[in-house]
């Protein structure tokens, strides 16, 4: 009966979301405050029933209730408890339920942390969020019911995709979804302002902290996904330009542009029209990503939905949301004030450059992601757009963006003089040139690494100078400023890590006999053989490799080759991590005798990639708790 409670909870949530769209709207437009104020309780009730449905499904997984089709197809009694819980979002239906659950958490959060926001704006925002929930509840109940029963339940369930049986994959989707779905909040604020025709300071002020928080989680989600791919997929890469990765990266790029654009709109009252479009674009790309992944148009480990009905439903929903928002924007655009003027050399110009570059980069990724799909759908042949395209197009677009972040925080709002800026930058440039020269002489002659190092040094010096100036002026260091500093440092850390690991990393695919030694980057890898190994729901082999440096033992690596019950083979790499380098070993195939093919990677500064990602996310969280978002206004 518990399953039926979960199912009915979803039905109730659907009806409540309908009431949420209708009743508070009547209240808002007929000046019936009691009805308008019902938006919050409706949101709480809707969130509660969605949470009930989510935990009922999780209970079904944990208790091996194979009478539920979703459980029978994605879990079995042998699966470890953690993966039984994470199997909830290992299927299409469960994944959509997680989407909805996260959306309801965001909606409830908006309703709770809204004491400083005008009631009519917040009620309208909740109505918009409720209508999004309504659309997704329809999709879930009519095309992807996670509680569908099997008339004759099997005694044992099927295997969860072994790739998904991993801690990284247990936490990466919820984090990614929190960010991904969180972009619905700025979208809802913007749409509410457009619907009510009140495109004033208030919506800009309150859109920014919510955008920062969702952007932060999106950054964490993408970082975790990259980390998971690195250690789980067995070939040591950290970004593959996979269409599903791109689906989360595109909203990230637009959301990055949005938080910068919002800072101009908030501080200077400029870029308002552009900000509105970015907020609509960010969430539209989230929905596009959902369509790409859930419709089954992509073939990837993430794309498990192959039912065209679902794809069609999401496509229609996508068209309604994007089309409706753009129509609303066109209707209300006359209400958007003209931008306050600014000169060519001003911080506004810097942020405009940042926005143009980010949106261009997003469009280049969008083109590379959709182009093969469009060709395929028109029967014009199958092509694959991979890393060479993205690296050739994306990287050159982003380099000026990194340069801009080291210059424009110095430049004054509205108007500045080039002589003042150049004077300020003089000290930095001398330091950068000196330190880069030293790196050229003592560390590396690789031109790409030198460029990345120069950028890193520049940003670090720039941040230190900015901090020192503030401290010297005895002015308050706000959370917003601190957040910007940490996030910009994070970008520099990321760029250096990504460049060094790509340029100076060493990869060797080799055959190793028992007792054989291979030397890579000064490390001696000694192959001690392979032994059989079995655990829970798989069996296979585990390798034993000792690593020495200057005859001193550094670590013992134990890569695995697993064969799951479904017959799917999996490579589990063994990694010795450190902040300066990773030693990465993956077991290949058994060759003649005791020999095995082995992949050995030396990855310098690879951890900096994820460290940079986490710093960016942390910076955004710091900025989101800036004093001006926490002070309660007196009415």
């Amino acid at each position: 009966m518990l399953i039926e409670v979960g199912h009915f909870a979803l039905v109730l949530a659907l009806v409540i979301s309908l009431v949420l769209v209708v009743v508070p709207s009547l209240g808002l437009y007929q000046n019936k405050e009691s009805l308008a104020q019902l938006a919050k309780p409706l949101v709480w009730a809707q969130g509660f029933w969605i949470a009930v449905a989510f935990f009922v499904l999780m209970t079904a997984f944990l208790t091996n209730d194979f009478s539920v089709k979703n459980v029978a197809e994605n879990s079995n009694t042998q699966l470890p408890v953690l993966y039984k819980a994470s199997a909830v979002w290992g299927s299409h239906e469960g994944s959509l339920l997680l989407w909805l659950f996260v959306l309801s958490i965001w909606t409830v959060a908006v309703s709770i942390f809204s004491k400083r926001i005008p009631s009519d704006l917040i009620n309208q925002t909740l109505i918009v969020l409720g209508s999004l929930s309504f659309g997704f509840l329809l999709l879930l109940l009519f095309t992807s019911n996670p509680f569908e029963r099997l008339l004759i339940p099997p005694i044992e369930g099927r295997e969860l995709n072994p790739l998904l049986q991993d801690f990284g994959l247990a936490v990466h989707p919820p984090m990614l979804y929190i960010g991904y779905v969180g972009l619905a909040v700025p979208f809802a604020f913007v749409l509410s302002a457009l619907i009510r025709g009140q495109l004033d300071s208030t919506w800009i002020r309150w859109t920014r902290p919510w955008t920062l928080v969702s952007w932060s989680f999106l950054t964490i989600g993408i970082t975790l996904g990259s980390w998971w791919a690195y250690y789980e997929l067995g070939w040591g890469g950290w970004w593959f330009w996979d269409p599903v990765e791109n689906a989360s990266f595109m909203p990230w790029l637009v959301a990055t542009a949005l938080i910068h654009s919002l800072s101009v709109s908030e501080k200077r009252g400029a870029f308002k029209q552009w900000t509105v479009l970015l907020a609509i674009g960010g969430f539209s790309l989230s929905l596009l990503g959902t369509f790409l992944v859930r419709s089954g148009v992509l073939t990837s480990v993430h794309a498990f939905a192959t039912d065209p009905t679902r794809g069609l439903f999401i496509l229609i929903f996508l068209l309604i949301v994007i089309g409706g928002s753009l129509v609303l924007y066109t209707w209300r655009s006359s209400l958007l004030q003209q931008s306050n003027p600014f000169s060519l050399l001003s911080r506004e110009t810097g942020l405009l450059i940042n926005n143009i570059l980010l949106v261009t980069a997003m469009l280049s990724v969008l083109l590379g992601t959709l182009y093969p799909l469009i060709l395929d759908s028109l029967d014009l042949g199958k092509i694959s757009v991979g890393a060479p395209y993205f690296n050739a197009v994306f990287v050159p677009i982003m380099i000026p963006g990194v340069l801009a972040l080291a210059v424009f925080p110095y430049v004054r709002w509205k108007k500045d003089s080039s002589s003042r800026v150049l004077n300020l930058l003089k000290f930095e440039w001398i330091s950068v040139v000196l330190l880069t020269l030293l790196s050229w002489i003592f560390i590396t002659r690789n031109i790409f690494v030198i460029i990345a190092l120069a950028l890193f040094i520049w940003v670090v010096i720039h941040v230190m100078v900015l901090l020192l100036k503030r401290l010297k002026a005895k002015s308050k260091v706000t959370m917003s400023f601190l957040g910007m500093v940490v996030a910009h440092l994070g970008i520099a850390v990321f760029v250096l890590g990504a460049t060094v690991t790509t340029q100076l990393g060493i990869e060797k695919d080799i055959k190793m006999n028992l007792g054989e030694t291979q030397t890579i980057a000064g490390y001696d890898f000694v192959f001690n053989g392979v032994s059989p190994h079995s655990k829970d729901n798989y069996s296979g082999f585990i390798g034993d490799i000792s690593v020495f440096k200057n005859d001193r033992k550094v670590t013992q690596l134990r890569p695995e080759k697993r064969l799951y019950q479904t017959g799917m083979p999996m490579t589990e790499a063994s990694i010795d991590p450190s902040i300066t380098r990773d030693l990465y070993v993956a077991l290949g195939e058994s060759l003649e005798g005791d020999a095995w093919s082995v992949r050995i990677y030396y990855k310098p500064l690879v951890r900096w990639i994820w460290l940079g990602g986490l710093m960016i996310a942390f910076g955004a969280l710091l900025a989101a708790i800036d004093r001006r978002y926490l002070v309660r206004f007196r009415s």
Partner: protein
Amino acid sequence: MIFSWQLLIMLILSGLFFTWFLFKPVKSGLSHNESNIAINKQRKEELELDINQGLIDDDQFQVAESEIVNTLANELRNNNKDNIEIKPINWSIAIFLCLSALSIALYSQLSPKFLPGSQVLSEPMTMDESIEKLQSFLDENPDDFQALKMMGLAQIGIGNAEESIKAFERAYIINAEDIDLLLQYASAIAATQEGQFDGKARVLIDQAFKLDPQSVQVLYFSGIVAAHEGNLKVAIELWEKALYLMPVDHPDRNIIKEALDTVLNLQVK
């Protein structure tokens, strides 16, 4: 439709929750004007901080300050609209009725018609009683796939292969991609052909194999077809694969092992 007291409680709880908030509404916060004044005041304070820190010069301060004042002047509106009181009891009843009617109507469309194992909760029925109940359900819902499949299984259970095939055929027209149906349907046909998976039975098993070549059940049945055709090598391969994919404690393991041993013995002989 399965509707129980738990679901009724869920409905009542939701209704009571909204009624409470209709009688005691959540307090409203700031007005738009108050919010805009406060925000622009804050912006002015930040501007003063900027000039104190030397981030802007005096001319820019003056221009920015006038921009803030202009912005605020544009944003302020006359919002003195009178609040219209409502009758909470009327709205409570309307919302509760709407919630109940829509939820029940929707759930009756979406909910399963049977609960798996629900018969265990009541007095166990004889097979004839089950068939009778199923038949009456099918009279009302002639296109219910699960019920048709269940009817096919029940009929074969009492040895009525012809009726079973009829039920399976109707289910097959509705969904020809259900592996379980394809295998059961093939078995029912084989029962009328002295256990031979020839003709349509074989076509159905091939169809199931195409849909899911990793299914243990499909591998088992495909092995039977191969063995009957004398392709013992193929049968052994299929059953070995099925055994490999099966968990060690799977209850059907022995059946496949037995079949495999029989074929291996035949090969030795």
